[in-house]
């Protein structure tokens, strides 16, 4: 197990990211574009000045959306594959598939869910361009904080495990994560720029679509990459059922 294994896992992670990106793009196109279009209708009706259209709406909804989604999923899948390499065998006695599932869960919670609670995805026209710099900085700061707190919680859990046992150590670390994240959520400045009369159902639909995309991304990454990683790391056990598991007198299982 060496650098070549890491490279193989990284490549498989990024391939998983591309496959996942196709799924997420399909979901985003079918579910996310509808509220986005409604928001653009609101924007067009309320905006006084409008710059020249650099990219047509048709391209933005298809090729542009696909580019953004595929870059995003491939990048995060690559990072998650590297996180998997670190996590494997270090976060408990989990095999490759379970480890991939836990890394995916951690990615969903820290990279998306926690920042989303404070600075949720917003359709066009609900935010002021004047505060873009501040909002961008806060959003990336929230992601960084959430990931760092998550890593700290995992390390804390590992340190406590010999004394408290795995179950209690996991609970303690999870509670510590929730408290630390809660403090960050409470003290970071809020952003509320919703314009008067913006349809609430459009915001809700948009945020459900955004959350669905992330859920789809991380869930399918965990499942697909877990399968691929297991084939790299445990080729024998993945290909054939273990012999010892079969009792001697057991009748052949019907297929």
């Amino acid at each position, binding site marked *: 197990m060496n650098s070549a294994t890491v490279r193989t896992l990284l490549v498989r992670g990024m391939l998983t990211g591309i496959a996942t990106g196709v799924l997420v793009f399909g979901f985003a196109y079918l579910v996310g574009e509808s509220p986005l279009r409604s928001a653009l209708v609101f924007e067009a009706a309320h905006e006084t000045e409008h710059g020249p259209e650099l990219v047509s709406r048709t391209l933005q909804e298809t090729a*542009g959306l696909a580019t953004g989604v595929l*870059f995003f999923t491939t990048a995060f899948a690559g*990072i998650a594959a590297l996180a998997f390499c670190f996590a494997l065998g270090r976060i408990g006695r989990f095999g490759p598939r379970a480890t991939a599932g836990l890394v995916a869960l951690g990615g969903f919670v820290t990279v998306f869910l926690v920042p989303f609670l404070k600075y949720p995805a917003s359709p066009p026209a609900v935010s002021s361009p004047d505060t873009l710099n501040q909002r961008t900085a806060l959003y990336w700061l929230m992601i960084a904080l959430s990931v760092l707190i998550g890593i700290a919680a995992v390390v804390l859990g590992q340190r406590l495990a010999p004394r408290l046992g795995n179950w209690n150590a996991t609970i303690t670390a999870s509670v510590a994560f929730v408290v630390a994240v809660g403090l960050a959520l409470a003290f970071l400045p809020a952003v509320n720029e919703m314009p008067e009369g913006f349809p609430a159902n459009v915001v809700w639909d948009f945020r459900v679509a955004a959350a669905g995309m992330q859920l789809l991304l991380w869930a399918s990454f965990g499942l697909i990459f877990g399968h691929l990683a297991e084939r790299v790391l445990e080729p024998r056990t993945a290909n054939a059922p273990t012999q010892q598991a079969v009792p001697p007198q057991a009748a052949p299982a019907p297929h």
Partner: protein
Amino acid sequence: MAQSAAPPAVAPDAPLTLPVRAILPWAAFFGILMLILLYFVGAEGGTAAVFSGEGVHEWVHDGRHLLGFPCH
């Protein structure tokens, strides 16, 4: 979780780990590459711009909103 009851010698079922030495070069290079990729999807043309104009921002506009990044 089952604490291993096996003698502390080399447990035959010791969990497989990858040495950090083997991971770090990949993490350093690809980690930064991935972050640059994310920057173009998430922030290029809004707060900072490597390329002039709004081309990148307009191209990934829908994805940027739906992926949760702050936008206009």
